[in-house]
């Protein structure tokens, strides 16, 4: 137990050191201590910029061939923080902060508002924790794939080369290809996990990756709250709207995608995207409202971090920004020229140009994100190529967003659109964000978007939560006003009843969704057996000679097996989902299917000969019989959920 507690303390120290310290000192260097940000803004900015700074420090060290060890990571973060603090002190001495101070905020919360916020946050954390109790164990496929690359960084102390070998046809037979580049992974998804593991010694096959994702999820809830506070800052009920937003994004629908389910599912890129997008929007709005180039530079720095972390989120952000720009131009057509002048003044400033130059240097001199190649761009842009990419129906989108959130979100959108505030920056941003996601999810062909529509749709909950909170409080405000003006045709008591029906409806919908997502028990027993068998085989497997094939259909946590071998992303090879072998559009190799499903067939024999596959990890009940029928295999390991067959050469 003492060992566990000390490892936990080290883990939390690593989290604070890597995920808060560099960003906090960076913030001090740019704005000084009295910066006008609220404590919530400081927290989300410290966290977001820390992630980006650690990523960039590791990328620069990797480019300079400095080993990414515990010492170099800790040293570079310490050095960066110390330099930032020195810069802060120097700038303070020369009085540089006065002109860069952000506008003082007046977002102090009342006693009851503070209690409401703390209660909502408590409920949010509590519900998610209850869900994660049964799902925090490392079993998810996506997380297993991602953690392989993070472990590569920790093990080799180098940046990974994203490539994999595959089974390919060769003449009459089959062989294993030379490693080929894969564009599915982006370096920012893996660096922070590698850094935390290096510093804390946390094992990748543990709860630690999910716990980090949980922190990111809560940070995104906080970022949306901060964004709502900023958008509705000038509204008389601004703080209450933001609290309603916190309720819509926090405890209700707390588990459905892209929230806690993405935490345990290991959808790292989306999790980061859902944090960085509202954070970047927050600083874009602040920059334009306060006309401060340093705030715009911060927003762009966050977008740069996003671009090094997740391509889909970056893509969505660009579309959201484009829609915002379009809507703002339409709404403010008369004064457009003066706005453009303001924008140009902000853009052509040393801060913004500095970030742009830094971004260009990072992309072209330090590390080019893997998705910036023509084939990856082709796969995301163009006429939708598959039925899953041609857009969702409205009912599918409603089910993704949550019925209550969709209804109130649309109400909020309509109210905002027809209100006099729609010309403001805050309104334009939230409308642009929501409309972009509606079009991208429902009619992607209009925008030439060729990305799975359900993946885009998962992003819509954030703008919808903001619009829902706005709608709810606006309706409440109208109700309250109508009560003070007795000239209404409708009896005010009916309005009160209607309001409470609304409130019950959205609460019930959100909590029903939570309860349906809660699982009664995890599959840890099966996963433990997978890990045990993997450890057993990894002790004997010769990385040069032995080739392992495992099944993805019936084995639990099979994506994590590769972390025991660390012999390539596709080691062991995998028999994928059966339907993949029948895909008429993308014809796939059949060897991985044949070698497990029909090991005695002529085709399978060719595959065994060509690939050298000599170990097979399969489920004993579903795939054991076909091996036991022949005398070509040894059954060398057996447990309730997994068995290993060996094909002696």
């Amino acid at each position, binding site marked *: 137990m003492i060992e566990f507690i000390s490892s936990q303390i080290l883990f939390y120290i690593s989290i604070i050191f890597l995920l808060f310290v560099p960003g906090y000192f960076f913030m001090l260097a740019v704005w000084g201590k009295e910066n006008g940000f609220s*404590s919530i803004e400081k927290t989300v900015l410290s966290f977001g910029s820390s992630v980006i700074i650690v990523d960039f420090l590791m990328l620069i060290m990797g480019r300079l061939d400095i080993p990414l060890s515990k010492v170099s990571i800790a040293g570079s973060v310490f050095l960066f923080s110390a330099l930032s603090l020195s810069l802060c002190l120097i700038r303070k001495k020369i009085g540089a902060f006065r002109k860069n101070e952000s506008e003082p905020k007046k977002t102090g919360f009342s006693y009851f508002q*503070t209690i409401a*916020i703390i209660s909502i946050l408590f409920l949010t954390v*509590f519900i998610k*924790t209850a869900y*994660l109790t049964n799902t925090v164990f490392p079993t998810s496929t996506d997380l297993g794939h991602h953690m392989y690359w993070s472990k590569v960084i920790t093990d080799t102390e180098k940046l990974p080369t994203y490539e994999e070998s595959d089974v390919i046809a060769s003449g009459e037979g089959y062989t294993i290809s030379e490693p080929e580049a894969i564009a599915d992974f982006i370096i920012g998804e893996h660096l922070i996990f590698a850094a935390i593991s290096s510093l804390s010694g946390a094992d990748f096959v543990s709860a630690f990756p999910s716990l980090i994702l949980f922190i990111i999820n809560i940070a995104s809830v906080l970022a949306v709250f901060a964004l709502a506070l900023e958008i509705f800052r000038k509204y008389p009920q601004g703080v209450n709207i933001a609290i309603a937003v916190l309720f819509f994004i926090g405890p209700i629908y707390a588990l459905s995608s892209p929230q806690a389910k993405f935490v345990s599912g290991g959808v790292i890129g989306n999790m980061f995207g859902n944090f960085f997008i509202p954070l970047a929007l927050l600083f874009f709005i602040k920059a334009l409202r306060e006309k401060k180039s340093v705030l715009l530079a911060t927003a762009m720095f966050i977008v740069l971090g996003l671009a090094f972390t997740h391509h889909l989120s970056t893509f969505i952000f660009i579309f959201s920004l484009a829609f915002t720009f379009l809507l703002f131009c339409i709404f403010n057509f008369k004064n457009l020229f003066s706005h453009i002048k303001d924008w140009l003044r902000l853009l052509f400033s040393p801060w913004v140009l500095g970030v742009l130059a830094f971004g260009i240097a990072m992309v072209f001199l330090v590390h080019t994100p893997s998705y910036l190649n023509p084939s990856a761009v082709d796969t995301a842009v163009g006429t939708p190529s598959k039925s899953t990419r041609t857009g969702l129906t409205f009912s599918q989108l409603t089910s993704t967003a949550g019925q209550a959130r969709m209804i109130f979100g649309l109400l909020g959108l309509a109210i905002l659109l027809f209100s006099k505030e729609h010309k403001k920056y805050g309104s334009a941003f939230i409308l642009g964000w929501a409309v972009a996601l509606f079009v991208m999810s429902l009619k992607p062909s209009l925008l030439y978007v060729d990305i799975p529509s359900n993946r885009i749709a998962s992003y819509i909950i954030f703008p919808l939560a903001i619009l829902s909170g706005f709608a709810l409080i606006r309706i409440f405000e109208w109700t309250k006003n109508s009560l003070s003006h007795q000239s209404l045709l409708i009896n005010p008591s009916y309005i009160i009843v209607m309001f409470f029906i609304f409130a019950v409806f959205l609460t019930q919908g959100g909590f029903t969704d939570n309860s349906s997502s809660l699982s009664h028990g995890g599959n840890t027993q099966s996963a433990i057996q997978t890990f045990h068998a993997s450890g057993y085989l990894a002790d004997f497997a010769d990385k040069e000679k032995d080739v392992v094939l495992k099944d993805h259909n019936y084995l639990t946590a099979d994506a994590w097996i590769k972390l025991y071998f660390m012999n390539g992303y596709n080691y062991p090879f995998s028999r994928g989902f059966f339907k993949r072998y029948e895909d008429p559009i993308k014809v796939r190799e059949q060897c991985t299917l044949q070698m497990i499903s029909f090991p005695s067939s002529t085709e399978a024999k060719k595959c065994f000969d060509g690939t050298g596959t000599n170990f097979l990890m399969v489920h004993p009940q579903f795939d054991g019989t076909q091996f036991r029928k022949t005398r070509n295999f040894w059954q060398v390991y057996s447990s309730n*959920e997994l068995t290993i067959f060996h094909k002696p050469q």
Partner: protein
Amino acid sequence: MYTFLKKNIIILSLGIFMLSSLFYLALIERKQQDPNYGKDWWALYFENPKSNSLDFTIENHSGVESFQWEVYLEKSKTYEGKSELPKGGKKTIPVSASDLDDKKVTIRVSAGERTQEIYKIITND
């Protein structure tokens, strides 16, 4: 100090919630990683999966403690024995045999209602 607490009460509260949650989840996951805690499974494997050695190991993570093992040469039983293994226990049983050319040697182990087997077909090249 009071001003600091007042200004940061929301973030501090959230920090406490998160710290408690993370610690609790890590503790839960630590128990889940324990192959014995709340588990009911056992494994049977050859000490060396690649060589001709027939030594095998039983690893118990179930509530059953009595294991009965049998060694078959093709279909005839040649050895048998019993082992008592507490939960978390592990035992390696040596098996020596000769003249096994192209013969299937099967190790069958039963515990409670469950039986598992492993085998090798040795060729003396």
